[in-house]
């Protein structure tokens, strides 16, 4: 079984649209939406949810002002600047800064601090017209998105093994931080979707440097390549210098936007379009390569 992760560095380059399109052509595949921060793939998949699981995001501390003597020992121990006096002179914890380390709770001489676990995140196991689908919903402002990604990937792997699927395709998050690192580690291949802009190239370069640490086979797709030909050429030169295979140069086409608006993949919307043809090409090439590695 092969796990393929679609990433981009920069947001909005077309990861989800392309993942959805590949879903229309990939068989025996389990899909997993790793962009738990702003998950969108389910809008196209329109999944039937089979299981809902809560996901605990770690502790948040709070101070009982009736017991607190305002000694300030907790302030000295907090490494996250999460504790301060409010206008009334009471000590309060900013829940958005609290990392849940519970050190304040342990060091408070009055036992005035307690912590509770957040249960604001959920993840789902679903079925869809493309196959099994694992996805998540994060509570606003929650942390630990990296851990949530690891959790849903683990489940996708389990389903893939039980159903004898050949592939897992992950729709990844933007950026190069914890959620991206959680998405990359253990993948067999990464497809980087690049838009022909300076930011698109910059961000892709930082992502490629990150993927290199994990030593994972990397492919690239230039999306909306005709927005700027100079930039497209620069990206092509960069990919050659890094020995990264360019799978396709997809043109800008309003049909792609229109298909998303009606909740369809480009292949469902217009199977005869140039882009649909390119999607088949992308998937065949990845499949061929990954199979060669197997045997």
């Amino acid at each position, binding site marked *: 079984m092969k796990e393929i992760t679609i990433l981009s*560095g*920069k*947001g*909005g*380059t077309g990861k*989800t649209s392309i993942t959805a399109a590949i879903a229309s052509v990939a068989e025996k595949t389990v899909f997993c939406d790793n962009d738990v*921060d*702003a998950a*969108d793939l389910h*809008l196209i998949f329109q999944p039937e949810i089979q299981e809902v699981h809560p996901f605990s995001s770690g502790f948040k501390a709070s101070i009982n002002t009736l017991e607190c003597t305002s000694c300030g020992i907790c302030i000295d*121990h907090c*490494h*996250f*600047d999460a504790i301060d006096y409010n206008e009334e002179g009471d000590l309060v914890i*900013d829940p*958005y*800064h609290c*990392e*849940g*380390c*519970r*050190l304040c709770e*342990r*060091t408070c001489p009055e036992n005035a601090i307690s912590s509770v676990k957040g249960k604001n995140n959920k993840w789902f196991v679903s079925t869809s017209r493309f196959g099994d689908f694992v996805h998540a919903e*994060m509570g*606003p*402002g*929650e*942390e630990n*998105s*990296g851990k949530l990604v690891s959790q849903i990937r683990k489940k996708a792997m389990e389903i893939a093994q039980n159903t004898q699927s050949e592939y897992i395709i992950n729709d990844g*998050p*933007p*950026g*190069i*931080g*914890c*959620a*991206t*690192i959680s998405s990359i580690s253990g993948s067999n291949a990464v497809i980087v979707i690049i*838009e*022909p*802009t*300076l*930011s*698109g190239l*910059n*961000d892709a370069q*930082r992502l490629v440097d*990150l993927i290199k*640490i994990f030593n994972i086979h990397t492919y690239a797709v230039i999306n909306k390549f005709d*927005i*700027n030909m*100079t930039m497209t050429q620069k990206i092509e030169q960069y990919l050659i210098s890094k020995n990264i295979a360019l799978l396709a140069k997809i043109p*800008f086409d*309003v049909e792609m*936007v229109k298909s*998303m*608006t009606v*909740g369809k993949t480009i292949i469902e919307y217009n199977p005869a379009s140039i882009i649909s043809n390119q999607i088949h090409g992308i998937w065949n090439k990845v499949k061929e390569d990954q199979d060669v590695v197997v045997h």
Partner: protein
Amino acid sequence: MSYKIAIASGKGGTGKTTVSVNLFKRLNERQGTKVQLVDCDVEEPNDIIFFCDAEVIDVQEVSQKVPEIDSEKCTFCRKCVEYCEFNAIVVLPTVSFAEINPTLCHSCGACSVACEDDAIIKYYKPIGAIHYYKTKENNGLAEGKLEIGSTMQTKLIRELKKKISDQNDIIIYDAPPGTSCPVVETIHDSDYLILVAEPTLFGLHDLKLMVALVREIGLEFGVVINKVGLGDNDIYEYLVNEHIELLGEIPFSKEYASLYAEGEITGEIPETIHQSYTEILDTLNLKMMHHEGNHHFKW
């Protein structure tokens, strides 16, 4: 005190950077106003692309204090393991093994407090750098750049924001995409938040996630719709139903997208887009004046 404006979006690629840079440059044109742009998208900072003549003034490394166990001093009591909420410490007394996993460590300091044998040593691990630039207009641009492979983006944003002088009249925070902790760190103390949204299925869905977040934090905010003409009209209905203020609309233009591609977004821009920013700025001025009560800004 500075007036802090944060620009965020939920969905990536909706135009946060374009809006941030355009507002920054236009606010700069006002005589005597000190404006600071802060690129908080530390995983992928790009604001600097649009200032080809900016000079680097300073670069400061930011590091994280990571603990390590001195196995000579360690008595393998496992008290640090009990204290660590992040499962970052492994202590096996039978084989005299004690180790801290730096990737799982949040640098909270709990193990140091737990240890009674003085066996926790700390070393500094780089998590990124803060770059300070001076733009042609003599105003400042600061950017956080995450060390590749580091997962400490939120800490870097916190350090970056701490370094910004409150002597500025206006500070613009360009936020990363998403709705989780790095975004909260960027926007939570802003006086006004601009959400840049796209009139598409994904754009609207992610805007709703962002609205849920900012309402929970309790921030004053408004929406700029970018790439108008691409997608559909559902977003307008949503804004009306939710009583959310529409600050302005920026039309989609393939020509402008192509200019943006090479780092040109403020010079030769189409008249319609120019007009959009003028409107957004007018509304923003009212917000700032309102914020200052009856005291107008110095311009």
